[in-house]
């Protein structure tokens, strides 16, 4: 029997796409499906998924959990745990429609929750950390249950199949978001487990990723020193945790996080002004194990926007475009032009140079 | 001009320079044949002085103002106008040893194996670019270079 993600490390190639409106105006999932569908050839039907930000304004203060259950027993065990630790404001199946290409779907549930007060106090953690640890705990110890989305006012939708079929399956044309990211997967060795599809998320972080990082075990063993558990053995998981560690826990600005993950070459650091060089040197010295090596292009979604990044020697494709308030990033330019025929500007970001799109001040969640 | 300079700090006293010098000036230029077959025993034109731990190799310094040339009674000892190399024209040399009398380095040896002549370093000028002693010194204690390099 083939081992699934988490039992073994499965490399995969992929297509990614991201669209956002910087004013925070929300739009349906049609464009993102069209964009990712164009890159059909970059996937092989073994995984597709989306992340959407701004979709649950009515529950924006609650953590929205999206969960796969293999069976009812798993659901009972998990809900028991959730009930002990959280107040569940609302729960129910995530609506789906029948799509011929999508089969063997697990049970897919959604919960809007917040941590129970006394549990939170007892844990001496903040809401985010408490929730993150509970999510990691369920994903590590609860067989048959897998939380694949846990942020606020956002959600991930993924499964085994081509991404456009997954989009149709989750009826993403009925959701409205100010930021959409999408992923089409080309794994080389997977039984087709829904949890293994992208995006990978933790709290508000979501990552879609194309590539196979060669620094994986160095990165994994580094983040695991700080309470993370890389259950899926996937790059996206490790990268998500790195972002979480650096940005959320070490309070490092995203621009700086990028200097860690896709660190400038030593030869380039030497050319910097002394103060800047000193800073970059310190970052490379302290966060040497957080350097992501090997080919990757990623789109990171978070509550205030998105960040797209290539590895430092650009071993994977990534194109960006702008039109008015709209910002597009994708593996291929055609995947942008299919939804935005005449962008104001199209460019190819250099290796290690991020494309960061943030919501305008008034639109911030 | 390029000369051979000895760095006695790193001379190991093995005398390979002597051996290879002798071979370079032998008939066959083959080390085993030169030593085992040739009737005229090969003779080095370089001398290693040693009293361990001190040891160094010495050969003709090819003096600017060479006393051996001035003292030579036959005119056999000459300095190359272009090369600066002091050589002994062996068919004119009669082996009077006046050069030995005046060489302050003691760098000229008697070769009485064949024709009785004074033998001295010729920097292997006719054989190789680099003198055999320098080429075969196992510890770079001999350098072939311009003065002051």
């Amino acid at each position: 029997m083939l081992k699934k993600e988490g039992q073994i490390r499965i490399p995969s190639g992929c297509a990614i796409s991201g669209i956002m409106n910087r004013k925070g105006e929300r739009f349906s999932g049609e464009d993102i499906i069209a964009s990712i569908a164009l890159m059909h050839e970059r996937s092989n039907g073994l995984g597709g998924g989306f992340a959407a930000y701004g979709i649950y304004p009515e529950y924006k203060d609650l953590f929205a959990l999206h969960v796969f259950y293999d069976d009812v027993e798993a659901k009972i065990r998990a809900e028991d745990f959730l009930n002990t630790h959280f107040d569940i404001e609302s729960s129910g199946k995530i609506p789906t429609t029948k799509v011929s290409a999508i089969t063997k779907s697990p049970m897919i549930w959604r919960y809007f929750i917040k941590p129970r007060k006394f549990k939170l106090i007892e844990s001496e953690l903040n809401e985010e950390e408490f929730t993150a640890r509970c999510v990691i705990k369920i994903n590590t110890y609860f067989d048959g249950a897998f939380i694949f989305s846990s942020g606020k006012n956002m959600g991930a939708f993924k499964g085994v199949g081509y991404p456009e079929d997954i989009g149709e399956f989750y009826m993403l044309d009925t959701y409205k978001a100010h930021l959409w990211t999408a992923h089409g997967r080309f794994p080389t060795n997977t039984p087709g487990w829904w949890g293994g599809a992208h995006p990978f998320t933790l709290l508000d972080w979501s990552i879609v990723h194309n590539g196979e990082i060669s620094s994986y075990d160095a990165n994994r063993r580094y983040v695991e020193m700080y309470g993370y558990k890389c259950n899926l053995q996937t790059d996206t998981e490790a990268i998500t945790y790195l972002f979480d560690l650096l940005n959320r826990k070490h309070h490092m600005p995203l621009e700086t996080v990028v200097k860690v993950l896709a660190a400038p070459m030593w030869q380039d650091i030497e050319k910097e002004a002394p103060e800047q060089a000193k800073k970059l040197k310190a970052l490379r010295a302290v966060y040497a194990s957080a350097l992501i090596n090997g080919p990757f292009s990623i789109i990171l979604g978070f509550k205030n926007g998105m960040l797209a990044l290539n590895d430092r020697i650009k071993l994977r494709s990534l194109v960006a475009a702008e039109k008015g308030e709209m910002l597009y990033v994708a593996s291929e330019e055609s995947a942008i032009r299919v939804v935005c025929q005449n962008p104001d500007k199209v460019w190819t970001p250099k290796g290690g140079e991020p494309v960061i799109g943030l919501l305008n001040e008034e639109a911030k969640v | 001009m390029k000369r051979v300079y000895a760095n006695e700090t790193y001379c190991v006293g093995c005398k390979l320079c002597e051996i290879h010098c002798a071979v370079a000036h032998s008939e066959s230029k083959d080390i085993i044949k030169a030593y085992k077959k040739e009737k005229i025993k090969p003779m080095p034109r370089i001398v290693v002085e040693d009293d361990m731990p001190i040891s160094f190799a010495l050969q003709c310094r090819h003096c600017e103002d060479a006393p051996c040339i001035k003292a030579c009674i036959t005119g056999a000892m000459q300095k190359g106008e272009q090369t600066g190399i002091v050589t002994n024209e062996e068919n004119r040399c009669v082996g009077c040893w006046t050069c030995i009398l005046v060489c302050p380095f003691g760098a000229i040896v008697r070769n009485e194996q064949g024709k009785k002549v004074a033998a001295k370093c010729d920097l292997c000028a006719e054989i190789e670019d680099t003198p055999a002693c320098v080429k075969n010194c196992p510890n770079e204690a001999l350098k072939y270079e311009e003065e002051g390099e």
Partner: protein
Amino acid sequence: MSLNFNVPEFMVERNEDRCIQCEVCVRQCANEVHTYDEEDNKVYADETNCVNCHRCVLMCPTRALSIKKHSLEFRENANWTASAMNEIYKQAQTGGILLSGMGNPKPYPIYWDRMLLNASQVTNPSIDPLREPMETKVILGRKPEKVTFDEDGNMTTKMPPQIELSTPILFSAMSFGSISKNAHASLARAARETGTLYNTGEGGLNKEFYEFGKNTIVQVASGRFGVHKEYLNAGAAIEIKIGQGAKPGIGGHLPGEKVGEEVSATRMIPEGSDAISPAPHHDIYSIEDLRQLIYSLKEATDYKKPVFVKIAAVHNAPAIASGIARAGADVIVMDGYRGGTGAAPTRVRDNVGIPIELALAAVDQRLREEGIRNEVSLLVAGSVRNSADVVKAVALGADAVYIGSAAVIAMGCHMCQKCYTGKCNWGIATQREDLVKRLNPEIVSTRLANLIRAWTHEIKEMLGGMGINAIDSLRGNRLMLRGIGLSEKELEILGINHAGE
């Protein structure tokens, strides 16, 4: 005189067709194996003293010499081997402990050779180091948990002292005294030339070498020879040597005859007196004492020099390493049981300590479990023989490696294991002037630098093959390793999968 039971270990074979009686061998053998007989016009050999160092073989201009294992056999016995019996003869003769030089030669498993490296194929590209930057720079030193910035983006973290290496290879401690001044000079020059560090060992530092300070680690060992404030400040880092892989738990002994004028001045001991390093530091009987010494040294150097603590890899290395990290060391050095030395009791050398590969894997894992691996650097030593060993060490979790035996081999050592006799024919482990001058630092520093460059090239090739362009991404990246022919337990300790998994 009674009969000596010990027989020659080697035979010198002289091809008489090639021997020209030039006597180079006679002049070059410090063990006086060769003699020239004028009457016979022949060179003879008395093999009793031959240590098989190859000096004569390599110096012979006609390649007339060869050295073979002596053909004398004992009756075959898998238990009572020739060496087991010879050692008994020797001890029965002398009543003394057996001494040996260099590292443990016994056929214990070599884990480096039981691990295989990965390479990229299709799913991610390998990187060509000739076309793309390939970074081997390593920064050693204590690291803060995080780097912080103020609102203006200025760094607010104060970085402890760090050492930059151009490549993850350093020259390990070899004292002036145990090795010659020329050998010492060669290491210093090579370190400077290749952007790495050499280590003074416990013999102090001759003032002549202060100019290499940026590339020097000054060692403080139990004998405290040549240790003073200027010395501590003369190098880039300080290393406290608790133990060494070749002789864990044992002190050192430099015989008085090696303590000449310069060694005496450098070590600050009288000429001709034995230099004895006690087994323990007599001011360190526990971990908190170590902390005091670490901080005394930091005080003496104004907190500008990282302090390394070197231990021999022993059974509970992980716990010890954790203690060292928490005691404030910036760099932990572990020396495996194959580490070399100038002189060690044979029994200790061959039976004490554990393989560095296992110690490294266990220590790295333990420090990670404690969440402190990133705070200290981890250096390993103890028979790193080639660039693949370096790559495997880094993949297991080392920041860098020390090379000692490999370095002396590059210098000309032929592993005759007779360092303690002081008659090293290659001018390395000797103070005899005529032998020391055989080692020309100009040549030998180039040889050492060549070795470092060659290994670095190879490391880059292997990194590129793995799709990695910075050594940082290899450190602790155990997925790049697969075991071959290892037991479940060994795989578990090494933290790697078996090949094929």
